[in-house]
């Protein structure tokens, strides 16, 4: 994982190497924010790429952006909201639950089925959490970011990250318990 680094200003007209370095530093965090909104990996990647494309255009147009990471995260959030209004989101072909566990190809069918069911359950519980909590969970569990890094990305205090993380984990545990199934973690 590439831990986030303190953002620096992005001056207009810079070289492509500098932009690619920016992409390597922040693309995962941008993806995580987009993923936390809809819990859909492919859409999150499209949104992240679109955010960087817009930043690139701004850069080519000579716009100076003081905090490119904050700019990217804000654009990604807006794009994720706009995605909710798109026709594909409303009239999509298949629910994302069908594709859970597809990447795990080297396991037996029974294990695969169990993984699919468990992931679907995790997804269902995550969908009931506030987006702010999902932001923290995604940054922590998908990218292994430390608390102070999450606080830096989200612009909140580390104590707030602790509180939200603890609350989110507590809610998830309660939901698993409420379901009363044997496959709960």
């Amino acid at each position, binding site marked *: 994982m590439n831990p986030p680094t303190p953002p620096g200003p992005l001056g207009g007209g810079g070289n*492509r190497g500098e*932009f*690619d370095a920016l*992409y390597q530093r922040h*693309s*995962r965090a941008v993806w995580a924010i987009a*993923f936390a909104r809809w*819990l859909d*990996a492919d859409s999150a*990647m499209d949104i992240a*790429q679109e955010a*960087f*494309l817009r*930043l*690139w*255009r701004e850069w080519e147009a000579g716009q100076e952006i003081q905090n490119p990471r904050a700019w990217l995260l804000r654009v990604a959030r807006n794009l994720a909201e706009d995605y909710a209004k798109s026709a594909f989101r409303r009239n999509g072909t298949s629910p994302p639950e069908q594709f*859970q*566990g597809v*990447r*795990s190809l080297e396991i037996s069918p029974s294990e695969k089925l169990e993984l699919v069911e*468990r*992931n679907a359950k*995790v*997804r269902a519980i995550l969908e009931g959490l506030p987006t702010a909590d999902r932001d923290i*969970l*995604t940054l922590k*569990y*998908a990218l292994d970011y*430390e*608390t*102070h890094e999450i606080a830096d990305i989200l612009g909140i205090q*580390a104590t707030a*990250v*602790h509180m939200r*993380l*603890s609350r989110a*984990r*507590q809610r*998830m*545990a*309660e939901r*698993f*318990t409420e379901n009363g199934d044997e496959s*709960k*973690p």
Partner: protein
Amino acid sequence: MIQPPTSPTVPDDLDRTLSDFFKGQLPSTWPACRATAPVEAAANVPAKSAGDVPWTSRTALAASVALVLGLGFFVSSGATNSGRPTGANGSLLSGATANGAGLLKAAGPAEKADDPMKNIPTMPIP
């Protein structure tokens, strides 16, 4: 590293479950930036001019045009031959004229000569 506070009611392997779920969503290989990728691709590929068109493409185009022209000629000639009635002797129609007015004119006197009612007197009906 500061660990988040945990509750005794939280299952021990919740962290593992969440980690498995979220890491399973991450792309296996992180893609390159699409914003700059087309620029690099365009820079690496030399620009093509009209002279760079492969000869196979031109040959295929010429063959296609020839095939279309040949097919059109074949279909048109076939349509001309098929327009002739089957079994008809073409020599019987040689010198014939399709003049309808002339045919009616020639048939007029013959009908009058063969009229069976020609010599029967007309009588008034009581």
